[in-house]
C-alpha cells in the first residue's frame, strides 16, 4: 500500500509538515504513510485549555472520496466524543466532501472542542449533564483534561 501513494496524500502531508496549523501537529507514521499521529491543543477559553489531546487519523483506500477515520486516543469528557474516542462530526460522515482535507478536518475537530453540541450527542451521559448542569459538566471536563491531557503540549 505504501508503494503507490496518491499525489494528493503526498501533497497534503508535505503541507501539513511545512505549514502546520497553529495548535495542531500531524505526523505520518514511519511504517504507514496513511496513518497519522495527531496532537491537538485544547482551544483557549474552553474546558480543554492547556490539554494536549492525542488522536489517530487514518486515510482509507478510497480517500479522498471517503472521509478519513479519526479517533481520540486521549480520554476526553465531551458530549460528541464517546469513551472509545469516536467523534460525532458531520463532515466525517454524510457531509464529507472530497474537497475537504486533513487540515480542515483537524480544524473542525478543534472547533468542536470550543463548541460542544449536546443536542447531537454521542456520549449520552455526558450530553445529559451538559444540558442539565453545564457548570458541573465543564468542571468535569476540566478535571479530565488535567488528569489525562496534561503533558508536554504542542508548541503553537
Amino acid at each position, binding site marked *: 500500500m505504501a508503494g503507490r501513494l*496518491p*499525489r*494528493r496524500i503526498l*501533497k*497534503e502531508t508535505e503541507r501539513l509538515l511545512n505549514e502546520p496549523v497553529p495548535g495542531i501537529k500531524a505526523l505520518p507514521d514511519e511504517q504507514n504513510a496513511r496513518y497519522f499521529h495527531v496532537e491537538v491543543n485544547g482551544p483557549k477559553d474552553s474546558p480543554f485549555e492547556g490539554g494536549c489531546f492525542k488522536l489517530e487519523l487514518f486515510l482509507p483506500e*478510497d480517500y*479522498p*472520496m*471517503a472521509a478519513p477515520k479519526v479517533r481520540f486516543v486521549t480520554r476526553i469528557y465531551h458530549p460528541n466524543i464517546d469513551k472509545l474516542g469516536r467523534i460525532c462530526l458531520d*463532515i466525517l460522515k454524510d*457531509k464529507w*466532501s*472530497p*474537497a*475537504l482535507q486533513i487540515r*480542515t478536518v483537524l480544524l473542525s475537530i478543534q472547533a468542536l472542542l470550543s463548541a460542544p453540541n449536546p443536542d447531537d450527542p454521542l456520549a449520552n451521559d455526558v450530553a445529559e449533564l451538559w444540558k442539565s448542569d453545564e457548570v458541573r459538566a465543564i468542571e468535569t471536563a476540566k478535571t479530565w483534561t488535567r488528569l489525562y491531557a496534561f503533558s508536554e503540549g504542542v508548541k503553537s
Partner: protein
Amino acid sequence: MESDEEGIYDVESDASINYNSSDDGIYSEGENTAHGEANDFMDEPTSYKCLTSDQIFNYMMKVVDEVNAILQLPPHITCILLNHFKWDKEKLMERYYEGDQDKIFEEAQTINPFRLKGKVVSSNTNNITSFSMQSTKRPLTTQEVCDICYLPSQHMNGLQCGHFFCIDCWNEYLRIKIIDEGQGQKIACPANDCNILTDYETILSLLRGSDIKTKYHQRLTDGFVMSHHLMKWCPSPGCSVVVKVTTAGTRNVTCICGHAFCFHCLQPIHEPVRCPLLKKWLRKCNDDSETAHWISANTKECPKCRATIEKNGGCNHMICQNKSCKFDFCWICLSAWSPHGSSWYNCNRYDANDSVAARTAQEKSRAALNRYLFYCDRYMNHRQSLELEHKLYSKIKFKMEEMQQHNMSWIEVQFLKKAVDILCKCRNTLKYTYVFAFYLRSNNQATIFEANQKDLEMATERLSEYLERDVTTDELSNIKQKVQDKAKYCEGRCEALLRHVYEGYDMDLWEYLDE
C-alpha cells in the same frame, strides 16, 4: 376477477399522476408484454407491461417534456424540480406559478437558469447556449489544479455553482455515489458545503463506461418509479425491469426475467390468500416455526406467569426462574407445590381440582400451537414439493425427446410440459390455501372451501405421481391419456377453488380468527 383496491393505494392516490395519456407514447412500441409459461398465473397478460431501464428513462423524460411544455426550462432542471416534488406535476406547477421561484430552485438544490443567464452572458460571451446548465468547461488554455487530486488538468468540469474538478475525480466521485451508495437524483456537487445537485445531462456527459451509465439510469429513475403507484421494480435480485400495470387491481404479474410476483406486496404469487394475511403469516413463521416444534416437545408453561420452562433435572418441584414470579409448583400436576410436602399430597389422584384450571389453560395454548403446526406443516410441505417439482422439468424434457423418437410429433408431446406447469400452479395454490385456512373461522363456506381444497390436493397428488413415476413405466399412449385427463381436472379444480374464494371476498363470506 377482482375489482377491489388495496388500502395502500388509496394513500398514494392523492399524489398520483395521470400518465395514461402517455400510454400510447414513444415507449409503447418497445413494451414487452410478458409471454411465458407462467401465463396461467396472471390476471390477464395485457394488464401490465415490463419496461427496461432505458424505456423507463424515456418514459420519465416524456413526463419531463410534458411539464416542460409549460415551464419552458431545460429538461434536466425540470427533472430535478419534479423529483423534488416527488413527481407531482400539479404541485410543482402550483408552487412554481404562485410564489417565489427562486425559493423553489433553492429548495430543490439547483440554480435558477434564468438568473444564470444574465451572469453567464456578461462573463463569457462566446460560449452560451441558451442557459445551458450542462457541465461548463473552462477554456482549454488555462491548466488548473483539481481540488481533489491536486493534479493539474485540462479537463476541468463543474456545475453552475462554479466548483470545478478534473474528469478523473468526477468519475471516481460518481462511481462511489452511484455504485456504493446507490444514489441517482440526489448526488450533490463534490465541493465542501455545496448542496447543488448534479443533473443527468452533466453526469451522462462525464461518466465513462456503459456499465455505470446503465446503473445511473436505474438509480436516476428510482424516485420516479417509487412515486408512481402503478409501477414497481421487479423484486428479483439483479433484475432491473419495471413492471407497469394499467389498473391498481392487477395482482399477479410475471416479469420478463421470469419471476412471478404479486404486484401489491412483491411476494411470490400467493393465491388465494390476500397480502395482509400473508404478511401476518410470514411474520408468524419467521417468529416461531422452528422453535415452536422444540418448545412443544420439551417444555411446559409456568402455571402462574406462563413463562416457558424446560425441565433440566429429575426433581418435580419446580421454581419458576422468572424474577417477578418465583412460583413453586409441581411439574406433574402443574399446581402449587405447597401441598406436596404435606399430608395434602394428592398429585397421584387424577382430576385434582386445582390442577384442572392450570391444565385447561395450558391445553388451550398447546391446542393453538398444534393448530398452527398443523397448517404450517402442510404449507411447508407443499412449498418443498413445489421446489422439487421444478426438477421435473428437466426429467420431462428428456421424456419428451424420447417420445418424439417413438413416432410422436413435437406438438403431440407438449402435453407433458403443460401438465408440469399445471402441477406447479396447483402446488403453489395449495401452499397458500393453508395460510388462508389457518386464519379462517369455520362456517358453511369454509367447509366448502375445505372440500375444494381436499379435491384439489388429492388430484394434485395423483398428477404428481403420474408425472414422477408412471410416466417412466406406463405405455406411451396410455400415459398421455392419463396425464392429460388428470391435468385438466386439476386445472379445473384449482380454478373452482380460486373462484369460490374470490366470490367469498366479493360477498364478504369469509370470517377470520384473531390470531
